[in-house]
Structures are given as C-alpha cells and as structure tokens.
C-alpha cells in the first residue's frame, strides 16, 4: 500500500501555471519565433481602395529585385481553383482578387523573398492599376434599390444576405397592443477589433518528398482548419498538419481562415521552401475580421409597476464584404436570441438582417460567444430605460423580473433551456459588497452640489459551451470536443485535448481535472494541445467552450480510466470489484479503510501485474457531446464619476459577482474575469472602428485605436456565487467571456444614470469624453 505524499491539487486549487516558466524567461514559442532552414518571407500588397476594379497588375519590377523568388496574384490562384475559399457561414471569400477589390487593405498580391525586408521592398514595386467604384459604406443605404452591389458574383443581385428571426411575432405583437407601458430605444453597437497583442501569421512548410504540408499558424481551431484546408486544396488530410503553438491572445480574432495562411501555403508548395508570413499591426487592424456592428431597434412592453412582458427587436447586421462570421452554421446571428436575458417575459420576437458593405468581414467574436454581447447590452439597457421611464430603481426592476432560482431549468421565449441560475443571490451579493444604498445616498448629496456620479447595474446571462451536436456544427462538423489520456507505468500522465489555449492556462487547468479524477499529483500530468498530428479532433477554443466541452471530455476520459483501474485494484487487493469504493483519491475495500490502493500503484500494475481478463495499459479517449449549453451569469455594479470640465468618465468602483459554476482554479478564473472586464470597458468607453464615406478606415494603428492601458483600467473587485451546472460532469460552466459580455451595459447604465436627472436616456458606446462633453454642454452643465 502506498500513501500519497505529494498533494494532488485537483479541483479548486489556485495551482500556479505550468506554462509560465517558459513565458517568463522569454522562451515561449510563438509563430514568429519559428525559423526553419531555407525559410522565405512573404509580404502582401493591399488595396488602397474600398471598392475598385483591378485593371492591371505588373510585377516585373518586383521580380527583378534580387532576392525576390515569386509573386502570387489572384490569377495564379484562380488557375489552381484557389482564388476563392469557403467561409464558415456558407458564403465564399476571396483569397486574392482576380479583377476586383471589395474593402480597403484587401490582399491584392503576395511577394515571396529571401528576407523580410526584401519582401517589404518588393511590394512597393508591384504596379497595380485600379478603377475606383463607389463604395457601399452605410448598411441602411446598402439596402436601397439603387445601391451599388458589393457582391455581383452572387446570384441574388442585392446587398441583403439573409433574414433570421426567433420567437413568436404574433404573440409579441398582441402583448404590445395591450401594454400599459412601452419603452423604445435604438442602439448601435459599433464595429470593434480584438487586437490581441500578437498579430496573425504562419509558417507554411511543404515537404515535397513526403508530400506533406505543415503549417504553424496563429489559430484557435487547428483541427477544423486542417479539414477545410484538405477540402479546399485536395491534399489528403493525413498529409496536412496544422500546429497552433503558443498564441499571443486570440479572443475570437484567430478563429477565421485568413487569406495570408492560404497564400503562404501555396507559396511553400510553389517554391519548395518554408514560407513565413506575419502581419504588421496596421494590416491586422485594417483587414482582419471585426466584431459587433449591430444596428438595433428595441422595444420593451411592461406594466405600470415595472413587470416586463414582451420584447421586440429589429437589427441590421453589417457583415462587410463576405459573410465570414465565426458562428455555428445554423446560427447566422449567433446566439443573439438569448436577448431576453435573466428576466421572465411572456413573449419575444427578434429579427436580424445581414447586409454586405465594402468593409472587411465582420461578425467575428471579440471575446464573446456568438453575439451574446450585443444581446446583453440591449436587454440590460432596456431594463434601465424602463426603470428610468417609470421612476423606479433599476435594482428593484431587476429583482422584480428575475427568473427565480426554483424556475430552472427554464425555457426562454426564444427557446433556450437555461440549465441553472440564481440571479437574485448574485445581485444581492454585489449590492452588499458595494453598499448600494449608501451609494444612492451619496449620489443624491452629490447631485445637490452639482457633481455627476452614476451607478450602473448589469445582471447578465451568458450562453456558452456549444454543442450539443444536434443543434451546433461548423461546416457540418459537429461541435463536440475531446480528450485522450495515457497513464504511464510510473503514474505520470499525458493528456491531449481537442481545444487550444491562447493564454487561458489549459496546461494547468486540464491537468487539475485529470489530477482530481485520477488522484495523481498535478505536477505529474502533462497537457498537450494544438498539434493536429497528435491531439484528438476538436473544434477549438472560443465562445468559452473549452471547459464545458473538452473539460467535460477530460473528466469523462479519466473516469473511464478509473473504471478500468477499479478492476486492477480489485486484483491487487484480492477483493471483489463491487466491494471497492473510490475514496480520498484511492480505491478502498468498503468498511476496511486500511485496505486501499492508489492510482500510482494501479498504473504500475496496469503494465506489470494486471488480471488476466483485463487488457494491459491504462488509457482512454472521450469525445464529449454536451447535452445542453451552460449558462454562466453575473451581477455587476459600476460607479462612475464624470468630470464636468473634460467629459471624462472615471470608473471609481466596479464590483463583479460572477457565477461560472464549480471552479477548477480560482486564480485563473479571477484572471479571466479581470481581462474580460477590461475588454468590456474598452468598447464601452474607448474602442470603435469607423470609416469615412470613401471607405477609408480611420483607426489603422494603435495611435488611433486606443486599447486600455493600466491608467484607464480600474481596480476590478471580483466575487462569486456558485451554482453548478446540473449536466456538466463536474458542474462547471465556462468563464472566459462573461465579463466582456456583462461589463459594457453596467458602464453605460452608470453614465446614463449620472446624467439621467438632465433628461439623458441613452448614450451609444463608446462613451468617449467628447461625446459626454457635448451632452454636458447641451444641458448647460459643462465646466469651461
């Protein structure tokens, strides 16, 4: 018998991260750190126009430059049938244009050279002649009959892409007709860009002897990309290896397949050399996929005492030139229909229309699971609008309308089955922590003195963890996820997972899941991911799905191992299998705690002394198909002070009470929430991508597109409630995006609250100082 002396440190421990030692020493292995023998460099010529015909491309001067090996244009790709590629949403997208560009900074041609600087020189030598066309920049005008067409390649000669709706229109309209109170609000959720600090890039390496293409790529979904690459290029899937090494932040921006990856792969095939392509920041900001860009019109019907009854929402979604959003295939508007939020409503009807414009493709997440941020912002603003119109406290209106804890599982008017929740408990906790009553009193006193202070609440519901596979797929590939575990003879473990980390700390948290389930110390467990040659197939990390799906697969695979271990334990203990129980990370004979055996000893026996009716070895695989999504939630309260001299909004306090079910690693969860809150504050106060009428993008560097620094970011105060998911193997729900989803309305509500006594009812995000100052001026309260 062995007694484990090394602590297991499974679920609930703030285990320090296994990935940190290499990052702290500058020994991370990011894509741009990879250098292969004979490697060439690629740079890309981009369009200065948002909409233009290409009449001529002359690469002769570039090709004459010493060191330049090849120039690739749309015509070259067209010959190989690769000028277009499919998008995840059933649309198609140009890899390189043959005769027409449809957004500014679109890829036009690529240069392959022996050195990075030579490639950069050569792109300036490529002569491209354009014939400018009128750009379609306004999605409303795009729908007018005389609008120029963004996509004449389509059969449908219109800029309208699709119409999508959810809920019951007739029932909703009927409630509105009878309603005592109706509040209406238009909201614009601007186009924003994830801007992970690492841009996108790849190193493509074709081995002509093996006939195998290896691509090191900044991707959040290597397996799906391998399949798409195989389908598009015709290369057999076992001859393609996608490796996602260390990734410097993803947040959804590294889900799509960007043209650069495909062109670099073609270039490697063509030249027989490895080819590296790394975007610079301007290319990343101007051309990579965008998030949001929803023009929303919302109406809420209620009783005079503030009971919410029905919600009606119409939306215009600006998708840019290609519908390349990263949503599950059957959900062109993502999970936007979760818009009824944390509240009981009798009915809802939600409509979204997708529109093409001459902008890069939009609809990719910004740390948000499929359009949930847009939904949460709308409903949380509407609750406040209702409270303001009725002269009620927004906390009271929320308490009055919450889905009650005993109502779960709860089916929403748009058809989602919420697995669990306790909204009043979370809000009460946040209100106590921040002293809500005290703040309201302070606000009244300040108001009397002419000072501007606001308090904003957001009590959001998230919806994450896609599958289940009967509803969710990406290009037909079902949204399950996977884990494969091998226990070595001496009791150490390798686990490989189908999801990929971009900073979330999977090497640590997934090891903790295995440690917990197998009773082996966390330091003896290695987690690998991101290499399609070794990891089991999975759909990747985005939409807070890793723990709900691959995390579940990891627990289930480990439990399969434990079931086999039980037989070996019975053999070692000379006991009946049914007489054993798993207690304190050991199998012990029921009633005789002295007779027990731990996993380390069982592992050794699995290779050296196993019963005759049991196979040697100790390993298992699980492909987990979740029975439902999970529904994390939270209650956020934000306090702002507004400077009457500058219009600057300062977040004085921000309390975030999150409920993500059972927690694997509290330290990492806190970190995820801090980061998420900061990425919620960013679009609320600072970030937006805009275009002029000629299609020029106005935030092409970090000097115009302002990311929060440590100076603007407040000290986030976090807390939690724990309502385990009833269907997840260890009761977890996913947490990566809750804060990004929940924070913006708390901040916007706080600013509107600060100005509500002046008659202000809504301000679109980002709430910049100049926007606020203009309001202060208009109401005569600005200080000069």
């Amino acid at each position, binding site marked *: 018998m062995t007694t484990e002396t090394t602590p297991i440190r499974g679920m609930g421990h703030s285990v320090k991260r296994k990935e940190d030692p290499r990052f*702290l020493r500058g020994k991370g292995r990011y894509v741009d750190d990879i250098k292969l023998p004979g490697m060439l460099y690629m740079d890309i010529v981009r369009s200065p126009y948002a909409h233009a015909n290409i009449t001529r491309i002359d690469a002769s001067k570039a090709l004459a430059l010493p060191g330049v090996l090849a120039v690739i244009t749309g015509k070259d790709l067209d010959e190989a049938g690769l000028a277009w590629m499919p998008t995840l949403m059933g649309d198609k997208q140009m890899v390189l244009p043959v005769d027409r560009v449809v957004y500014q900074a679109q890829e036009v041609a690529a240069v392959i050279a022996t050195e990075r600087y030579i490639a950069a020189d050569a792109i300036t030598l490529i002569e491209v002649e354009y014939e400018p066309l009128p750009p379609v920049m306004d999605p409303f005008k795009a729908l007018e009959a005389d609008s120029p067409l963004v996509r004449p390649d389509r059969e449908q000669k219109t800029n309208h892409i699709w119409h999508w709706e959810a809920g019951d229109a007739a029932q909703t309209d009927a409630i509105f007709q009878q309603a005592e109170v109706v509040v209406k609000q238009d909201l614009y959720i601007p186009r924003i860009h994830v801007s992970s600090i690492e841009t996108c890039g790849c190193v493509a390496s074709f081995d002509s002897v093996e006939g195998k293409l290896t691509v090191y790529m900044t991707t959040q979904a290597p397996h799906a990309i391998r399949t798409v690459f195989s389908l598009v290029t015709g290369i057999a899937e076992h001859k393609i290896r996608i490796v996602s090494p260390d990734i410097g932040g993803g947040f959804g921006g590294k889900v799509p397949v960007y043209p650069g990856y495909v062109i670099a792969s073609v270039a490697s095939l063509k030249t027989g050399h490895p080819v590296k392509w790394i975007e610079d*920041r301007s290319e990343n900001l101007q051309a990579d996929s965008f998030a949001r860009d929803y023009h929303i019109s919302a109406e809420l019907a209620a009783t005079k005492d503030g009971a919410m009854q029905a919600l009606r929402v119409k939306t215009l979604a600006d998708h840019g030139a290609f519908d390349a959003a990263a949503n599950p295939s059957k959900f062109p508007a993502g999970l936007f229909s979760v818009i009824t939020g944390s509240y009981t409503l009798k009915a809802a009807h939600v409509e979204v229309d997708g529109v093409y414009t001459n902008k890069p493709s939009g609809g990719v997440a910004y740390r948000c699971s499929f359009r949930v941020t847009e939904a949460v912002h709308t409903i949380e603003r509407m609750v406040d609008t209702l409270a303001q119109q009725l002269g009620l406290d927004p906390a009271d209106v929320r308490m009055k309308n919450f889905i009650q804890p005993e109502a779960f599982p709860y089916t929403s008017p748009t058809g989602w089955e919420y697995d669990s929740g306790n909204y009043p408990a979370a809000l009460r906790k946040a209100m106590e922590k921040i002293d809500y009553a005290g703040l309201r009193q302070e606000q009244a006193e300040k108001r009397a003195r002419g000072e501007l202070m606001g308090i904003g609440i957001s009590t959001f519901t998230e919806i994450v963890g896609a599958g289940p596979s009967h509803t969710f797929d990406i290009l037909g590939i079902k949204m399950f996820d996977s884990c494969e575990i091998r226990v070595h003879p001496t009791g150490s473990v390798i686990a490989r997972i189908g999801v990929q980390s971009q900073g979330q700390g999977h090497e640590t948290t997934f090891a903790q899941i295995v440690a917990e389930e197998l009773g082996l110390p966390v330091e003896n467990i290695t987690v690998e991911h991101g290499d399609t040659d070794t990891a089991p197939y999975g759909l990747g990390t985005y939409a807070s799905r890793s723990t709900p799906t691959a995390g579940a697969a990891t627990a289930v695979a480990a439990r399969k191992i434990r079931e086999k271990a039980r037989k070996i334990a019975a053999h070692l203990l000379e006991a009946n299998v049914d007489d054993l129980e798993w207690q304190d990370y050991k199998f012990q004979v029921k009633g005789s705690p002295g007779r027990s055996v731990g996993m380390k000893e069982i592992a050794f026996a699995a290779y050296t002394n196993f019963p005759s009716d049991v196979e040697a070895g100790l390993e298992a695989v699980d492909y987990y198909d979740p029975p439902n999504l999970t529904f994390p939630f939270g209650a956020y309260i934000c306090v702002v002070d507004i400077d009457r001299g500058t219009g600057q909004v300062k977040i004085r306090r921000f309390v975030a009470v999150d409920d993500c079910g059972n927690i694997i690693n509290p330290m990492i969860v*806190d970190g995820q929430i*801090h980061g998420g809150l900061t990425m919620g504050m960013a679009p609320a106060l600072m970030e937006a991508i805009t275009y002029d009428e000629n299609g020029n993008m106005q935030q092409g560097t*970090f*000097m115009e597109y302002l*990311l929060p620094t440590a100076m603007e*970011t407040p000290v986030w105060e976090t807390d939690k409630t724990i309502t385990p998911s009833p269907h997840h193997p260890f009761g977890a729900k996913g947490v990566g995006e809750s804060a990004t989803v929940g924070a913006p309305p708390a901040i916007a509500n706080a600013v509107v609250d600060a100005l509500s006594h002046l008659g202000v009812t809504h301000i679109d995000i980002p709430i910049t100082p100049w926007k606020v100052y203009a309001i202060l001026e208009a109401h005569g309260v600005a200080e000069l």
Partner: protein
Amino acid sequence: MTQHVKMTLNGQPIEADIEPRLLLVHFIREVANLTGTHIGCDTTSCGACTVQINGVPSKSCTLFAVQMDGEEIRTVEGMEQNGALHPLQEGFYQEHGLQCGFCTPGMLMTAEAFLREHPAPTDDEIRQAIAGNLCRCTGYVNIVKAIQHAAKHIREEQAAPVATAEVTR
C-alpha cells in the same frame, strides 16, 4: 551596403555586419536569435518590444540596430541569474501576472528599470510606469500585484543583511 556594429547583449559582446535600416527588434530576434522580445505594433504604442538600453527601458521596434553601437542592451533572457529567476519573474508567476505571455517580456523590462528607481512604489505609480505597455489579457490588476510582490521581495533582500546583523547582536 552594410555597417559593422558591436554592442553588449545581456552581458555578452556581439558584433555583426548589418543593413543600417535593420530595426533593433529584428536584430535581437533574428540576428542574435533571442525571441523573447516581441513585436505587437511597430508604432511605439504597445511595449511588447521593450528592452533596456544602458538600463533605460526602450521600445526596440522604432530604433535602428546601428544606433546601438557601443551600447549595453538587456532583454528578458538576461533576467535569470545563475538559474534563479529575478524577483519580478517570480512575482509574475506567484500573482498570475501573465496569461498569453506575449506582453510579459516587455512588461518585465519596464518594471525592472522602474523598481530600480522606485523601490517602494504605490500602485498608482506602478500603473503610470507601465502605461506604455499594453496587455490585452490580464486587466493589469495582477501585474500591479506582481510588481508589488517583487518590490517587497527586493526590499527584504536588501534589508536582510541588516536584519541578520541585528539577530546576531
């Protein structure tokens, strides 16, 4: 046309014939093969490329390598001494001051120079010091804690001989 440069990189002399237009960050990453220094923006905005030049934190994406002739450069790879992590590296590890790790080397370089001048900083002073280093993952709260963790450790280490003397007396 190339130019000869000679500098000290993490205490080691290094010389090379390079193009005058070669950026310092590319020199460090591709000539010296030290890839801990990252590139996040190329406009001196993000700080991922921060190194120390004669002890002063500097953004290497907008400096030419030839400007560094005769200078002393330090990168994240030079922080660990005799197998022991620098207190800042230890602080970031203990306080979860990093997630994807891409901003971390630059943060460490900025923070190290800052703590040398400000051994007992306030949180606000730390925030001001790192305002030129963007982090998209952590929300900065734990970075501030990590730097405080290191500052405390360094202060204690420096006070230690005195404390020992007191004990022996």
